[in-house]
């Protein structure tokens, strides 16, 4: 299924798409990868409202290392991912060890995403604060594209986005088919009973949190490399964290392509509203998401794709 979609996309790119649809698809694929990373935790009841923090770290650490240290993103991104893992452990370990779960976990992570956003704003001398940050263009000192990880052709980005997105789906599948899925399902239902089955609850939760944080940070770094401009509001903070949750809940939290589906729907909606209504209705997409989220949680908790798959399966069975 996923490979078929990827195949169609690649053919479309080869045939040649105009830059605008290509741009939309690249953005959707990068976000879909990030959303998939979030859903790895979310599907096990680990509802993080702090993934904007990991995304911000992925984007800003990579960009800062490039601008101030001249470090190629090929090394900067791994450093950024390591920072995201470190943050995931620093926040996750106490939460998991002392059993901060459910709503309380969501609250802790909510604070986390805001801490990172405020940190970016507070260190404005280096990060540009709310005004945003632009990585030094490769053209300034003739660094090769590949070193700077900056490409002029959208097609190159399109291929990168597809590869990364497919890798995200592969990770999802790997988790889904491993014993850790059973362990995390067990933990999400009853931590005492899971421990009595010999599961190291803290360790298994940390594992999935680290994987999720790495994916989200990578999504942030790629977004930055592609857009070549970031601001605290586009890659961190509560708004981004909630955007991630909206999209995944809409698409379907328990199915492989659910987050991707959510990315397509929410990003297209935002884009259509932006083009059609323009600046008269700034924030309208967020209002619609808010209403949609409430409706989805009440009437369609498995999301659009999840519910469609269910309906299809029961009709067959």
């Amino acid at each position, binding site marked *: 299924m996923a490979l078929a979609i990827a195949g169609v996309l690649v053919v479309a790119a080869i045939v040649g798409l105009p830059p605008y649809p290509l741009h939309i698809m690249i953005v959707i694929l990068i976000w879909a990868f990030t959303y998939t990373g979030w859903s790895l935790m979310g599907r096990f009841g680990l509802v993080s409202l702090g993934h904007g923090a990991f995304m911000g770290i992925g984007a800003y650490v990579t960009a800062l290392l490039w601008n101030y240290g001249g470090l190629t993103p090929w090394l900067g991104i791994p450093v950024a991912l390591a920072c995201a893992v470190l943050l995931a452990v620093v926040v996750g370990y106490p939460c998991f060890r002392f059993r901060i779960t459910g709503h309380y976990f969501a609250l802790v992570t909510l604070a986390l995403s805001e801490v990172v956003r405020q940190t970016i704003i507070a260190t404005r001398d280096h990060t540009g604060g709310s005004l945003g940050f632009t990585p030094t263009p490769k053209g300034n000192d003739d660094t090769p594209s590949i070193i700077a990880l900056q490409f002029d052709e959208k097609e190159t980005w399109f291929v990168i986005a597809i590869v990364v997105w497919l890798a995200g789906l592969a990770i999802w599948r790997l988790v889904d088919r491993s014993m850790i899925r*059973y362990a995390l*399902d067990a933990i999400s*239902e009853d931590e005492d*009973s899971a*421990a009595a*089955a*010999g599961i190291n609850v803290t360790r298994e939760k940390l594992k999935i949190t680290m994987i999720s944080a790495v994916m989200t940070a990578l999504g942030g770094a790629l977004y930055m490399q592609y857009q070549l401009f970031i601001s605290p509001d586009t890659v961190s903070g509560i708004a981004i964290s909630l955007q991630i949750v909206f999209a995944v809940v809409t698409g379907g939290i328990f199915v492989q392509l659910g987050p991707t589906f959510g990315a397509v729907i929410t990003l297209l909606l935002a884009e259509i509203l932006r083009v059609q209504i323009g600046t008269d209705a700034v924030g309208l997409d967020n209002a619609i998401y808010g209403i949609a989220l409430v409706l989805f949680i009440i009437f369609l908790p498995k999301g659009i794709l999840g519910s469609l798959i269910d309906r299809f399966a029961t009709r067959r069975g």
Partner: protein
Amino acid sequence: MLKVANLVKRFGGFTAVNDVSFEVDQGEIVGLIGPNGSGKSTIFNMLAGTFPPTSGSIRFEGRELAGMMPHRIIHLGIGRTFQIPRPFRRLSILENTAVAGFYGQSHADRAGAWSAARDALDLVGLPTDPDSRVDTLGAAGLKKLELAKALATRPRLLLADESLGGLDDAEMDQAAVMLRRIREEMGITIIWVEHIMGVLMRVVDRVMVLDHGELIAEGAPSGVARDPKVIEVYLGRGADDASEAARRGAGQPA
């Protein structure tokens, strides 16, 4: 095998377990009984690592367990069941048991986990197919699943929080026979915690009676059932339990 010395547990000003010491030998089935609130569950939870003792020591095969995390205790070879079954309803019966088989030891392999799960389900008499749901099980079935999960972790000592209260006579007998089989066929040592004497007295080798957090009697079931202190505890606070003990207990050899 298990050596408990001077175990004390206080919750605030309340002493739930007061200076309890006992030993359990390899291959025994030991009953731990007492009326509600006598401290059985507290002792059980300390053995399983749910919470640490206030003071005292618990040594299993020479290793100190006091304060150890529950999953580590499982890895050392102690399995446990819950008084009220706590299955994972999002998983199938087989998956419930397999996850215990996989994580029940520190270095398990996947294939081994699934076969351990099937063996355990076979032994307790539950379906081993991959699709049977937990929701199809009744009270007795859920207790069997609890037992299968504990067995899948391949314990050498089983802590069975059985409390057969919710079962009918036939189901109680079945459960008792099951525990005996587990001891005989798998060589697993068992500590059976229960608040009614009933069927337990016919199965265990030795029984320990708790009251107000203290061990008031210990020995062979026949002797303990005639112990005046035990009779007082059970007659004083639950004539039903005591008369049942007399009816079904030590009088009828197993």
